């Protein structure tokens, strides 16, 4: 028999701040985490979403300060917050909690530094900490050590869907193993010259002469590409029976997911990107056994991409038909940018908060809806609504698509 899996804790580190209420309230009031920064090695000023170093320092455990890579630091802080939020204390069997955390770029910060070291000072100067700090599973490993979690422990990597796979496979583990709770999500610290270089041809915002308010502006006529940001999103997935036994609050139930990949096999299919996204949303509805008319809100991928936002609008219209104009849709990337391997989990957290707090978030920085995105019901301000079923889409620029369905409980 299928177990019911719910979310009992949330943790977030983002350019908007550290902590759930900080992020939620700042977001709803329209604050943006996107700013102009001088990043060493990039010319001259770059738009990005950066996590405040001062704030981060307050949260990193003292004995870890300076000893772990930035992406692991984010994950550690977000996981601790999430575990506290779920009220998981010392009486919880630590062997029944696992950790699945995704990241696309992993420890690129330390890799860059050590490559420099190798080619200036030679191999014997390469630091022993490189290996343990660069690993994709460094966050999951460090979180397990810090919080004493002895269940399955895996790092996932799948571009912008890295955190989604962490969540989905955590769901599978809860279903099929004797595990009660999973720390799941993603983390990313990609604000490095190489990443900006690599992502420009993949649709990264290339902002000359644009005002800050027009950098990340999902579905807006002025959108010019996605804006890179950093952060971590962590959820505590738990079996409903464990949550009930503990008598804790539940944010929502994970009732279904869709997964697809828009492969580049153009010879066999037309428009694989579009079709794979349609398939992804159809799968999520089917696996959740819900009719499209029952969806109360879609937290869109909406990365502020010229092609991507248009395509997502068409995909939603194609799946929901007439209903598309009725279902409120918004993207949080206007304030948060695209944090690659963390973005799916951060979207998920905002989706769960909207279920819990009965408020649907608006799309920040959306001033003039692009005609090609106009078939959707865009939220321009927060809307009070008690939603029952919501979808959280995450469509990566690399062709990976995930959509998660949550239900209030």
């Amino acid at each position, binding site marked *: 028999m299928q177990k019911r899996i719910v979310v009992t804790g949330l943790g977030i580190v983002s350019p908007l701040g550290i902590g759930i209420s900080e992020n939620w309230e700042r977001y709803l009031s329209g604050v943006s985490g996107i700013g102009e920064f001088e990043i060493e090695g990039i010319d001259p000023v770059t738009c990005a979403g950066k996590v405040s170093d001062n704030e981060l320092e307050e949260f990193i455990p003292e004995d870890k300060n300076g000893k772990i890579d930035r992406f692991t630091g984010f994950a550690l802080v977000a996981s601790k917050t999430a575990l506290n939020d779920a009220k998981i204390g010392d009486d919880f069997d630590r062997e029944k909690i696992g950790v699945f955390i995704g990241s696309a770029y992993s420890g690129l910060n330390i890799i860059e530094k050590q490559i420099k070291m190798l080619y200036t000072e030679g191999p014997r100067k390469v630091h*022993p900490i490189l290996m343990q700090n660069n*690993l994709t599973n460094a966050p999951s*490993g460090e979180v397990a050590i810090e919080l004493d979690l002895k269940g399955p422990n*895996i790092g996932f990597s799948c571009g912008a*869907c890295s955190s989604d796979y962490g969540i989905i496979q955590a769901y599978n583990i809860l279903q099929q193993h004797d595990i009660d709770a999973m720390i799941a999500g993603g983390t990313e610290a990609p604000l490095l010259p190489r990443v900006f270089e690599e992502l420009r041809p993949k649709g990264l915002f290339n902002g000359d002469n644009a005002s800050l308010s027009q950098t990340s502006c999902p579905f807006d006529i002025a959108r010019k590409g996605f804006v890179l940001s950093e952060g971590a999103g962590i959820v505590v997935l738990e079996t409903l029976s464990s949550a009930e036994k503990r008598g804790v609050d539940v944010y929502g139930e994970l009732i279904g997911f869709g997964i697809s990949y828009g492969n580049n096999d153009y010879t066999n299919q037309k428009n694989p990107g579009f079709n794979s996204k349609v398939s992804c949303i159809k799968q999520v509805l089917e696996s959740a056994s819900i009719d499209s008319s029952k969806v109360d809100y879609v937290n869109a991928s909406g990365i502020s991409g010229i092609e991507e936002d248009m395509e997502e609008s068409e995909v939603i219209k194609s799946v929901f038909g007439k209903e598309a104009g009725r279902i409120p849709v918004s993207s949080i990337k206007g304030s948060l940018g695209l944090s690659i391997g963390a973005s799916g989990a951060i979207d998920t957290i905002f989706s769960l908060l909207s279920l819990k707090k009965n408020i649907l978030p608006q799309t920040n920085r959306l001033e003039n809806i692009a005609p090609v995105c106009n078939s959707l019901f865009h939220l321009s301000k927060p809307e009070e609504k008690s939603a029952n079923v919501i979808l959280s889409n995450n469509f990566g620029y*690399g062709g990976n698509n995930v959509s998660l369905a949550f239900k209030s409980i």
Partner: protein
Amino acid sequence: MTNTTKKDKVVVTGMGIMSPIGVGIDTFWESIVNGKSGISEITRFNTERYPTKIAGEIKDFDPGEYMPDNLADNLCRYSQFGLATAQMAIQDAGLDLGRFNKDRVGVSIGIGTETLLYYDEKTAIENNNYNLRSKPPTESRNITSIISDYLGSSGPGFVIATACSSGNQAIGIAKEMIRAGQADIVLTGGVEAPIFPLNLAAFCSLRVLSKRNDDPSKASRPFDKDRDGFVMGEGAGMLVLESEEAAYKRGVRVYGEVAGYGATSDAFHMTKPSMDKVQISKSMLLAIEEANLNINDIDYINAHGTSTRANDSGETKAIKIVCGKNAYNIPVSSTKSMTGHLMGAAGAVELIVCILAIKNGIIPPTINLENPALDCDLDYVPNKARKKEINAAISNSFGFGGNNSTLVVKRINNTLTN
């Protein structure tokens, strides 16, 4: 959540392999049975300033046999391995993917850390510090995307990164997806091409590599009293997993069942294994339990057996905790003695070893085991392969980050139905 029918048994129907002791299943197995070492001096860059100068290099791989030159030029070496072994496995399974719903074909690949491998290879070539190729790779997408593009598949695809246990965990997770009805077929395994300047420097700095530079073929010597660290190697192991029902419907050969997967975490230290061995033992026990077997049913253990002091003693202790007195009756061997440590690929290559051991009724040896260490007193099948009927085998893998993973593979009778 509704899933399509729950598929109980997950079986292996195809395999592909690439290793320092052979490209392709037949060559590989012949080397295993003959106890051949694949370790030699590193030839691809100058190792003068490195304390370790040896590794398990694959010398007979021509990417052009498996992919167009322009694609090979774009890909990292590990992606070339992945794509080549994926083709071997698909062919071995007799799969015509055109006849499948491509949304239901998944890819789950284990690998150390793609970011490190990609930039290590790229910067080595840019700095003229690598002589195997002259153009730096340009494709930085996940290897799963590259394989999915090649197969034309559009189902779930993701990389599992748990350091040295990645291949093992990737297969375990793939099994769960098929069981949950989320995919009909999953191409799964592990790949790694770590013999590059930064990776070697990193492992040297950790002082975990063997320095037996003057006698490479004797360097990887798991459980021996003179072992002095592991030897890194490159390779890939790829498997086609599907439900037993689907395999029977297709009427194809079934190699065996992936019957149990156990995974735990030490929650102790990022690079040092926990001394008490409780979590390693538990990962083995969980896998055996899931396979519905008893300790006495296990005919062979393919050990993680890295040839480091800490691992081999610790793993021996864990096997004794799990098997009790019976530990002395179960053959345990480490094929890393021949292949070297294939890192992210190790778990997959070693599961393939278990399957071939079942198929051929032969237990692979632990070579270079001349004087077992005092605290290594099990039957490690020293130096010579042994004939024995095997019905169930275990493959252990442990990784940095303190993660432990075990797979159990079982013989399936009536392997052909049509």
